[in-house]
């Protein structure tokens, strides 16, 4: 048998929290699922976060068990570092051509022991840590990665061969090439997630050039127990900040950027981060500049009230501009709505509460309809929000609209429900 041909019931594209939950819910119902993830590990954005609102659970405590449940599930086959290149319809089935990118490490032999990583002489900025730390050219993507397999980034590799010599399993293989996998399924769930709005999108906020202005995701890394410095420091000079401000709706509800919608999570993550910083740096002043605080979910408004009680300052104001002074301290120019005046305030550090844009355009491969902002659109958003205009293809999570983890998980289970019903209809029971 040709090993590059697989048959399964369902294909889930994207291994973030939404894709993992969809895969688990389908697999738990007895369906064979193939989960395709473009990165070398599953986990999505969630695995990068620190703690999560509104429970302040540590994020890894919620994500890692799901990751290992996916990896160990008898009905789920996970294909990491893979991309779906095309989808055809054949005899009522979907046939996906999947490109397996070369890891330059034999997946069967590698044990994730990291010996290669320890000897590699090349340091490259770590995307996982938003370039705040370095990683090696060959490495296990991050400490809780699933699968625990090394991946070599050939662009930065100097082919010195140190890793190959260090590998006890003889797993490093510089000659590996990409290959194709053909997958036949009857249902597809798209869970391709989101990207944060680029920090350099907004000229008025320094276009990414100000030293001590970071975005929300970078702050997540700074606050994460797995983070770069294991504490909150100014990226500009490594000083402990005494005054930190959040600028809400940075890149959302903003016509000039073409992102007119609300990104739905930024109010809550900013409040969460503010509370975590207040815990880590009890003496720091923390301010949020906002237009509306959208603490709408279960337990969210109470969370907001707790933050107010902790002394975090909420200032209704529109930030017009951010510059920096000679000490690289960011300066905000803000219209204070309650007072009706425009002022300039200097802080040690500013966090832009950036929003969410779609990560992937499914148009050409999956031919599913997207809305005006590129999120995958349902023809019946109220009653069947995870359906797409193509029968048998479903969409979920942040790929369909900005949403938080709670809503992503509900949506993911809903997509699994839809896909299962579709499978039942086309296969007549399994």
């Amino acid at each position, binding site marked *: 048998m040709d090993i590059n041909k697989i048959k399964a019931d369902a294909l889930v594209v994207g291994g973030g929290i939404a894709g993992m939950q969809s895969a688990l819910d389908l697999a738990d119902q007895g369906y064979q699922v193939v989960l395709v993830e473009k990165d070398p590990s599953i986990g999505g954005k969630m695995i990068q976060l620190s703690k999560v609102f509104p429970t302040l*659970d*540590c994020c*890894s*405590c919620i994500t*890692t068990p799901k990751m290992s449940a996916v990896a160990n599930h008898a009905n789920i086959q996970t294909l990491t570092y893979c991309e779906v290149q095309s989808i055809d319809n054949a005899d009522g089935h979907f046939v996906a051509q999947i490109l397996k990118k070369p890891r330059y490490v034999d997946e069967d032999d590698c044990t994730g022991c990291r010996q290669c990583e320890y000897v590699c002489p090349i340091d490259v900025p770590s995307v996982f840590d938003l370039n705040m730390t370095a990683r090696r050219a060959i490495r296990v993507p991050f*400490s*809780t990665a699933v699968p625990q397999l090394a991946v070599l980034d050939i662009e930065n590799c100097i082919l010195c061969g140190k890793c190959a010599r260090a590998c006890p399993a003889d797993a490093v293989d510089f000659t590996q090439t990409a290959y194709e996998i053909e997958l036949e399924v009857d249902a597809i769930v798209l869970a391709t997630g989101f990207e944060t709005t680029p920090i350099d999108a907004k000229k008025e906020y320094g276009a990414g050039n100000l030293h001590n202005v970071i975005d929300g995701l970078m702050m997540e890394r700074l606050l994460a*127990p*797995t983070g770069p410095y294991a504490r909150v420091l100014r990226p500009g000079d490594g000083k402990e900040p005494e005054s930190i401000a959040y600028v809400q709706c940075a890149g959302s509800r903003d016509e000039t950027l073409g992102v007119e919608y609300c990104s739905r999570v930024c109010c809550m993550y900013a409040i969460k981060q503010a509370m975590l910083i207040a815990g880590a740096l009890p003496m720091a002043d923390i301010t949020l500049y906002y237009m509306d605080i959208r603490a709408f979910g279960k337990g969210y408004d109470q969370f907001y009230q707790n933050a107010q009680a902790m002394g975090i300052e909420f200032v209704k104001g529109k930030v017009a501009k951010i510059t920096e002074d000679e000490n690289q301290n960011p300066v905000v120019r803000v219209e204070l709505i309650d007072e009706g005046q425009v002022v300039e305030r200097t802080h040690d550090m500013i966090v832009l509460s950036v929003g969410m844009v779609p990560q992937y355009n499914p148009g050409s491969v999956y031919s599913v309809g997207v809305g005006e902002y590129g999120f995958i659109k349902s023809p019946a958003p109220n009653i069947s929000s995870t359906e797409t205009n193509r029968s048998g293809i479903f969409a979920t999570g942040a790929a369909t609209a900005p949403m938080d983890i709670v809503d992503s998980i509900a949506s993911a289970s809903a997509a699994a429900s839809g896909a299962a019903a579709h499978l039942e209809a086309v296969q007549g029971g399994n």
Partner: protein
Amino acid sequence: MEAATSTKVPKILVIATLSGGYAGADYVGQQHLHYATNTSILPVRCPSMFSEDFYINAFEKGIDGIIVMYSGTDSPYKGGPERTAQIIDNTYKQMQERGLNTRRLRLAAICTVCKKPFLKQVKEMNETLDEIGFVQDELAGKGDG
């Protein structure tokens, strides 16, 4: 065989929940952090299954210090953490009655990525044991006196 080391070290037993302390200890390992080798960690579902005499027996067998790393408010079990805390409290009383220093037993909530609190617990228990000595001596002292 290498020469056996003559200096005796105190023994620490860690009872750690699968949903909390045990995963936390794994996490400390993933980070390649160091702590003393005299600790042995046993996984449990919830320490509420152990009654007071389990701890007393362990001391009598020669375990010098016990850290119970439970899941606190993150516990998946209803009533488990409360019951654990109550049993530990009772155990303290029994320890006092037996002349055992109650500092030999600690209860701490440890989460799956609580590396600092984990290390702190182990370090502090070692410091405590350095100060108060072996359990056998304490038990013997009591027996003599």
